[in-house]
């Protein structure tokens, strides 16, 4: 029988539980057991170190110089077609810096443009110092694809959005109303070692991930 009721009945029979049986609370998540990185000074430095160890490049700049930092990061490689996430502040002005090569990646671009792009510039929502991960939640437009399709990705992140530990990130997500339909925790360029254990990057996702960390204060 393939219904919800039938499946639950089988499970309840196996567990010798009845429908009205009480549910004790799940095991407590002791911070001391789970947490690897405490809040405090140094979490941005830790984030940078772990992100680099995971194979991403990181530049830390004052907020005021963000646009020129983005341009030099992008121009350091092949950039015939650049997609700019429309959720970035100053997205329009950033796109214009690339002239004809730059496009705002709003809802109006088509698939061919998406697949032809060399670089995407994306605003990410958070960073995790423990693992050096960047976190991107889905929103309007091609948000999932921008961090997946183009072979190079430049992620823009505010230092204030770096949380110490994965457990802090999950607390944030659990409180998000609503929880985005797709949240990606990205820790490095796409990779595999399926071929004889030889590490190779850039399999299906971006082979290069560049993170630009902005300091609001201008430090």
């Amino acid at each position, binding site marked *: 029988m393939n219904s919800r009721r039938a499946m639950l009945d089988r499970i309840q029979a196996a567990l010798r539980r009845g429908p009205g049986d009480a549910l004790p609370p799940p095991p407590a998540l002791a911070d001391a057991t789970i947490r690897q990185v405490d809040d405090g000074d140094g979490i941005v430095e830790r984030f940078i170190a772990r992100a680099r160890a995971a194979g991403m490049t990181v530049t830390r700049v004052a907020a005021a110089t963000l646009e020129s930092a983005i341009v030099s990061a992008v121009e350091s490689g092949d950039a015939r077609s650049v997609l700019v996430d429309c959720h970035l502040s100053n997205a329009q002005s950033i796109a214009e810096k690339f002239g004809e090569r730059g496009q705002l990646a709003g809802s109006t671009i088509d698939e061919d443009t998406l697949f032809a792009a060399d670089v995407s510039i994306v605003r990410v929502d958070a960073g995790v110092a423990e693992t050096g991960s960047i976190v991107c939640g889905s929103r309007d437009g091609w948000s999932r694809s921008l961090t997946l399709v183009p072979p190079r990705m430049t992620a823009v992140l505010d230092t204030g959005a770096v949380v110490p530990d994965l457990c802090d990130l999950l*607390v944030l997500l659990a409180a998000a109303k609503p929880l985005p339909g797709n949240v990606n925790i990205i820790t490095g360029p796409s990779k*595999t070692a399926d071929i004889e254990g030889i590490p190779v990057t850039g*399999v299906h996702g971006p082979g290069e991930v560049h993170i630009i960390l902005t300091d609001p204060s201008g430090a």
Partner: protein
Amino acid sequence: MSDMRVALTVANARLRDAVRAATLLKDEGRHRGMGELRDADGLRWLAADIKQHTLEHLDFYLSRFVDRVEAAGGVVHFAETGADARKIIARIARDNGLRRCVKAKSMTSEEIGLTPALETVGCAVVETDLGEWVVQIDGDRPSHIVTPIIHKDRASVARSICEHLDVPYTEDAQALTRLAREHLRDVFRQADLGVTGVNFAVAETGTLCICTNEGNGRFTATRPRVHVALMGIEKLVPRLADLSVFLKLLGRSATSQDMTVYTTLLTGPRRSGERDGPAQLHVVLLDGGRSEILGGDFREVLRCIRCGACLNACPVYRGVGGHAYGSVYAGPIGMVVSPLLRGLDAYHELPHASSLCGACFDACPVRIDLPRMLVELRQETNRAHLTSPWKRAAMRTVFATLGRPTLYRMAQRVMRFLLPGAPADEWSRVSDAWFGGAAGARDLPRPAGQSFRRLWAEELSDE
């Protein structure tokens, strides 16, 4: 595992070396990664407790999960058996006119044999995980939960890829990967159905957590207009926050990285305003014998998070690789779940093919007591008379003798009378001549000058 399968594997020295090198590397990586945790044992206990709690109240968590998935716009299907799951997915393909399916790695989809069922309804299936894709174009089977072509060396991978794509031969791993990427990119663009597995399913929010490295999992869950997520019912965890425990353990146990490159949390299909993401999200819940395991002594085996740590730690697996097990699930975990899911008749040899060293138990991030279960399964094979009657008789005799001191002493004297004497340097030759056949690959130790009992008695009498 059957003698023939083992013999074939052992004869392939290259395969053995590849498996050995890769498993050692990952096992070392696991020690390093787990060593970096502040409280690795505490985390393992917590993970075990969370999973055990969830299993013991699975009806509740499953119910909540289903409600949340549906509230987020997903559709949930319930499959009692693998065949039911195949039918459900084939029907989804047929009802939506889906003809081009891309698959991300999923052991559960292997377990139910999904691909032929889709092909029967006119839906072509392409595996997109690099190793699984190579396995598919070879017509082979994956040999490891996490690294499917651990049994192939670079040259044989190169041959497979270059012949299939009809391109000039290259052995460069980067170049081969580029070739696969370009080819599969087109496949992704055309696909209308994506099938993935699920690493963890969160009851609290109806969220599917999928951990991958290559990006094919994300493409599979993003590009096609219909996404089918197939999961065993044991994948549930209660809260989003629980993922912090499992994610910290999964990467470190599986391949020694902190996190997989992509950890994707999916809650429902595409929302309005979004241009990507599936229009439909279907979650297929598979029982497939799991509720029966839930009701028995082997319940804890359902805690498994498919990290592969036990495979990498196991000296038997390291020696023979995955195919020798003759099952979708190989290694120590496979030795237990294969007979449980598929029946003892088909897999009665597996529980015996272990030295019970316990490395798997040490390695397991959710503390599954595989050695205990292997011993219990052996008892079941004996009770079911699936083992050799001679062996059973011999073991009964040994058991009877060891339990009776007088009988034991008599047996000792008889043994000493029967054993050939030989000086130390000639012992192995004599032992081979006398016992070679029966002992097989084992060496019989040379007997001591006198029995321990006599030595002990004399020592005591001296005092």
